[in-house]
């Protein structure tokens, strides 16, 4: 048995497992991102709103979610949450890949509140006069937020949001704890089945590294291409 046998990574059953894992990790990232971004934007708008109850609700959401580790979120959503569902909905959940659904819920919430904080600091970076000027030009409150505030806030938030996406990508690995068959799960499966841990973990390391560095590279490029313009 060679110390490092690259052929198992090129074809065969283990190669298929690892590739399936990589695919699911990417899917988890993309789907959770698609839910987390609007959720985060909503929470950020809540936290900067003029209504006190809304601000308090936003702050409670953020603090209660981000001060609990992702692993505890996953355990809750997978083991406890189905108990709270009525019988019929629980059956639907169990028939439709509950590991993946619960992982997406947990990742969306966890990553969403972190994104909310990034967007919020983006919003705070836009001078208050921008919104006042938009309002005095006759735009309604919603229109002013949508057309004037958010475009500027998002521009400032894109680099931190991208680094949050790197975190989301890395966090998908934790979903292995509830048995979602993502990359870490498959790497451990290969190690159990074949003791080919060196190859399996090398594959996982390279895959995590590549995607992370690609996203941080994109953040870097964005920052160079679209530097934050401070409206005076």
């Amino acid at each position: 048995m060679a110390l490092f046998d690259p052929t198992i990574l090129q074809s065969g059953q283990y190669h298929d497992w690892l590739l399936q894992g990589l695919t699911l990790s990417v899917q988890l990232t993309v789907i959770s991102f698609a839910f987390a971004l609007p959720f985060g934007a909503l929470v950020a708008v809540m936290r900067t709103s003029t209504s006190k109850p809304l601000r308090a609700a936003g702050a409670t959401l953020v603090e209660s979610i981000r001060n609990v580790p992702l692993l505890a979120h996953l355990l809750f959503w997978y083991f406890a949450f189905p108990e709270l569902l009525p019988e019929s909905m629980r059956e639907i959940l169990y028939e439709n890949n509950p590991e993946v659904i619960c992982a997406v819920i947990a990742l969306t919430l966890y990553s969403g509140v972190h994104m909310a904080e990034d967007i919020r600091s983006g919003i705070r970076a836009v001078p208050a006069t921008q919104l006042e000027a938009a309002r005095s030009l006759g735009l309604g409150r919603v229109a002013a937020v949508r057309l004037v505030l958010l475009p500027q806030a998002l521009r400032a938030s894109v680099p931190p949001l991208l680094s949050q996406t790197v975190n989301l990508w890395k966090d998908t690995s934790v979903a292995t704890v509830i048995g979602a068959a993502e990359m870490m799960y498959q790497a451990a499966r290969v190690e159990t089945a074949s003791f080919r841990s060196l190859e399996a973990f090398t594959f996982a390391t390279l895959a995590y590294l590549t995607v992370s560095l690609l996203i941080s590279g994109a953040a870097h490029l964005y920052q160079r291409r679209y530097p934050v313009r401070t409206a005076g």
Partner: protein
Amino acid sequence: MLELIDTYWLYFLVGQYPEGPLGGLALTILLSGAALVLAMPLGLMLGIARVSTHRAIGLPVGALVQLVRAVPLLLVLFWVYFFLPAVTGIKTSQTATMLIVLVVFDSVYLAEIVAAGIRALPKGQLESARSLGLGYGQALRHVVLPQTLRHGLPSIVNQLVSTIKATSLGYIIGLSEVSFVASQINTLVFTQAVEVYLILALTYFVLCFGLSRLAFLLERRLQRRPVAAT
């Protein structure tokens, strides 16, 4: 719920101790604290190396930081868990494995805090210290680092919060920290998953929220008393 707490509170707090190894919430807290303290000297060294003007020192450290930040902690945990015993020939306990991984991650993140702090300090601080006749090392030790660390204190407390959250990953290698113990309790009780995991979440919340508030207060206090010299 009260009955649940009444039966299992001790197990939740300390695991099987004193009959078995220490576990539960006590292990979570001890492990995170120990990791952060042990990572401090390494983090300081890496942080100073990161801002070094010698590219031969700064670049490799920068690469290491990028590398560690680009992979999940869980992956490094698996590497250490499966390979360290094979390389050293000694069976490493789950606690030691987790501690090693946490120290590696913490020292890299602390290095970033230290480096950011040094960069944020006005250049004149180092220059005037040097012109007063202090060597580079002396200037760092007596002038730059005390200010950097004072300003970095809130970030260091936040890093402790991240570390506490990261210890939960020990669950996956069977480390009997608080998440693992909660799962054990859930298996024993079987019918009260919602209560068990809500208590777990609440425990983390109290701990981490308390610490982040502390970091926030520290930050406010530091802002009120800025460094006069620029």
